[in-house]
C-alpha cells in the first residue's frame, strides 16, 4: 500500500499537529478547496487535532455539488430516452434533480450505468452501434483529460453514437471569486493537489500576490493535509503570501503538459454557472467547435427544463465557505443524506454529507470524548499482535 500507510502515520501526524500548535499565535481561517480534502479532514478528524483558533473553511471543490440543477435535469431527461445508454460516475446517481434522480430513471427502465472511466463509455458505444451512449462528464481539471480523450477517440473512430454531457469546472477562477468577494473570510488556501497534478500551479503565484494570501498545493492523506496547513500557518505567522508546493511527489510547477495540450485541443474556456454560487466568468470548459458534434446538449436538444431549488437549502453559502454545514437551519432536520435538499448533502465529497456522515451533528468536543472506553483496550493495533 505504498503512498497510503506512509502518509497516515499517527506519530508523525501528532508531531506535525504539535508544530502547528507551536507556530500559531493567532486565529486563522484556511480554505481547503477540494471536496476530497474536506472528506479526508472530517473522516480522519484532522480538524480535531488543530489549535482552537485555526478554522478550516470548506471550499467549492466538489464537482457533484456545483453541477447546475438544470444540467442534472437535462441528464435525467436524456437518460430516460429509450435509445440512450447513460453512463456516469457512481456518485452522480443519487443527486436529486427537480423531479427525481438517476437511480429512479434506472428503476423506471432507463439504461443508466456506472462506469469508472469515460473510455469505458466509448467502448460501450462501439459495442452498441444501435444505441446512443452518453457520458456525464462531471468534474474539475482532474477528470477533464480522460473526458477529452474520450471525445478524441470517438472522433478518430468515427463514432456517431457517443456524446459527452459536459460539466467541467475550473478551480483557479473559483478561488479568485472567493478571495475577491467583499465577504471573504479566507486568509490562506490549500490548493487541490490532484487538480494541480494536471494543471501545475503556475496559475497560483499571481493569485497569492494579488490577494496577499498564501496558497499551498496540498494532497489528501492526513500527513499531506497537516503539512499543507503547517506551511500556510507558517507563512501567515511570518506575514508571507507565496504559492508553495507541499505535494511534490505528485505535482510539478508546470503540471502534465501532454494533458494540457489535449485539453486545449478539445475544450475552450467559457463562463459557467456554479450551483449555489452563480456564474463565475471563464470558470468552465466546453467542447470546441471541432468537437461540438459530441456535445450531448447539442445532440439531444432538451427543452422545457424548469428547475426548482429548495428554499431551505444554503449549499451556496456552504460552498462559498460563508457558513459551516451545521449552521444551516435545515442541516440534519429537513436535510439529511436520506432526504437531501441540495447536492452538498448527497455527494460523498459534499461538505454537508461529510459533516453528517462523520457525526458532526455533534460538537467537536463531544465527539473528541466519545470513544472514551477505548483507552481500556491498550495501544492501538499493537497489543493484539
Amino acid at each position, binding site marked *: 500500500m505504498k503512498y*497510503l500507510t506512509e502518509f*497516515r502515520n499517527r506519530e508523525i501526524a501528532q508531531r506535525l499537529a504539535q508544530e502547528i500548535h507551536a507556530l500559531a499565535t493567532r486565529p486563522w481561517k484556511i480554505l481547503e478547496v477540494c471536496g476530497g480534502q474536506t472528506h479526508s479532514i472530517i473522516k480522519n478528524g484532522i480538524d480535531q487535532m488543530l489549535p482552537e483558533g485555526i478554522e478550516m473553511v470548506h471550499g467549492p471543490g466538489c464537482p457533484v455539488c456545483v453541477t447546475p440543477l438544470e444540467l442534472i435535469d437535462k441528464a435525467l431527461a436524456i437518460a430516460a430516452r429509450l435509445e440512450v445508454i447513460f453512463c456516469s460516475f457512481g456518485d452522480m446517481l443519487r443527486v436529486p434533480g427537480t423531479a427525481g434522480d438517476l437511480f429512479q430513471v434506472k428503476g423506471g427502465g432507463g439504461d443508466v450505468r456506472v462506469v469508472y472511466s469515460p473510455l469505458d463509455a466509448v467502448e460501450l458505444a462501439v459495442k452498441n452501434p444501435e444505441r446512443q451512449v452518453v457520458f456525464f462528464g462531471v468534474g474539475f481539471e482532474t477528470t477533464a483529460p480522460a473526458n477529452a480523450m474520450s471525445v478524441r477517440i470517438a472522433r478518430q473512430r468515427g463514432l456517431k453514437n457517443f456524446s459527452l454531457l459536459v460539466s467541467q469546472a475550473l478551480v483557479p477562477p473559483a478561488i479568485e471569486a472567493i478571495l475577491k468577494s467583499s465577504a471573504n473570510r479566507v486568509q490562506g488556501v490549500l490548493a487541490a493537489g490532484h487538480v494541480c497534478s494536471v494543471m501545475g500551479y503556475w496559475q497560483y503565484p499571481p493569485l497569492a500576490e494579488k490577494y496577499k494570501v498564501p496558497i499551498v498545493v496540498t494532497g489528501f492523506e492526513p500527513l499531506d493535509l497537516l503539512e499543507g496547513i503547517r506551511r500556510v500557518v507558517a507563512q501567515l505567522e511570518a506575514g508571507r503570501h507565496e504559492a508553495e508546493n507541499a505535494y511534490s511527489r505528485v505535482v510539478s510547477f508546470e503540471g502534465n503538459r501532454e494533458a494540457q495540450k489535449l485539453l486545449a485541443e478539445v475544450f475552450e474556456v467559457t463562463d459557467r454557472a456554479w450551483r449555489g454560487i452563480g456564474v463565475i466568468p471563464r470558470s468552465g470548459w466546453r467542447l470546441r467547435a471541432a468537437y461540438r458534434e459530441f456535445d450531448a446538449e447539442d445532440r439531444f436538444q432538451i427543452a422545457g427544463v424548469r428547475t426548482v431549488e429548495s428554499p431551505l437549502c444554503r449549499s451556496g453559502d456552504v460552498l462559498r465557505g460563508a457558513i459551516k454545514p451545521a449552521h444551516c437551519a435545515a442541516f*440534519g432536520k429537513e436535510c439529511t443524506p436520506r432526504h437531501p435538499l441540495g447536492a452538498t448533502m448527497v455527494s460523498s465529497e459534499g461538505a454537508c454529507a461529510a459533516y453528517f456522515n462523520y457525526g458532526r451533528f455533534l460538537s467537536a468536543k463531544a465527539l473528541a470524548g466519545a470513544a472514551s472506553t477505548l483507552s481500556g*483496550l491498550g495501544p492501538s493495533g499493537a497489543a*493484539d499482535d
Partner: protein
Amino acid sequence: MTEKPQEGALAASLPALDFSNWSCPLPLADYPSIVMAYGGGGKLGNELIEHLFLPAFRNPSLEDLGDAALLDLGGEAPAGRLAMSTDSFVVRPLFFPGGTIGDLAVNGTVNDLAVSGAVPRYLSASFILEEGFPLAQLAAIVEAMAKAAAAARVQIVTGDTKVVERGHGDGCYINTAGVGALRPGIAVGPHQARPGDAILLSGTIGDHGMAVMSMREGLEFESQIRSDCAALNGLIGAVLEAVGTAVHAMRDPTRGGLASTLNEIASASGVGIDMDEARLPVRPEVGSACELLGLDPVYVANEGKAVFFVAPEAAERALAALRAHHLGREAAHIGKATAEHPSLLVARTAMGANRVIPIQIGEQLPRIC
C-alpha cells in the same frame, strides 16, 4: 481537545437535531418503485422490511429480525428448538476469485443459522435459470455447492428448478433455505449486546466485496483479491464451546459490511459502540482497491467473517479460540459496547480523532475523483 468533555454531552446533543429523521409519516414514499439501493444492505432495505414485510407477516418469530427465525415446535422437535433462515443469491459474476455463486449460496444460509446460535443441518436449494445458460457452468456451480455443503456438514435435502426466458434472468439465481438445531442454553441475538461487551472480529474485512467488484470492473492489482467465502459454523462452534453464554450477540457482516452490522446491533440492543479503526484488519490489496474506488472497507461485504459481542471477562478466551481456528487467525479485538451514545457507532481514527460511522442509505457509490 485537552478539555475533558462534560459527561453526557454527547447524548444531550442528540435529540435536538433528530439526525436520523426516522419517523417518516410516508414510509417508502421517496421512491415509488424499487431502486437498486433497496438491495444494498443499508437503510432503504431495512425500511422495506420494517414498513412492508413485517407489518404484513407479523409474528413473534419474525419480529426479532435476527439472521434466522427461532422456532419452537413443542414436543415434535428432538433438539427442542429450531432455527430457520433463507437467502437469495444474485451475485454477478457467478464465478469470482475465491468462490462461486454456489458456495456463496450454501455458506450464506449456513452462516445465518450459525450466528443465530444453531447447528446448521438441512438446506433447500432452488435455481432460477435463464434460457441459454451453459450446462457446464451449472454443473460447476452445483459441484461447488456439494463441496461447500460437505465442508459445512449440512445436507441439501430438497430443491426446485425454474427456467425463465432469455432476458428475464441473469444466467443463474439461487435461493437456499436452511434449518438447524438451536444449541441448548445459548441465547444470542442482535438485541442482546450489553454495555461493556468486548467486540471481536474474526478476520480481515472487505475481501469478498472487493474480489467481486474488481472482477466485475476488470481492475487488476499486483496480488489478486480473493473472496473470503466460507462456512462459519465450525469457527462459531469453537467460540461457543470456549465461552458459551458469555457470547451475547454475533453476526456475519455481509452486505453493508461491518459498519452496517455494528450499527444494527447498536440499535437493536440500545448500546453505543466504540471502535478502534487502527485495529481493523484490512488486507493491503483490499485497502488499495477501496482507495482507488473511493470506498470505505467498513461498508464492503464479507462472506466468511463473524463479529462477536462477548462479556469482557471472557474476551481473551474467546479471542484465543478464534485465533486457534484456521478461519480466525487474524481475529482482532476491535472495540467495546458502551452505555454512552446509545445506537451510535463511534470510531477512533488512525490519527487518534473520532468519527461517527452511520448506516448507509443504500449502496456505497464510487466517487468521481
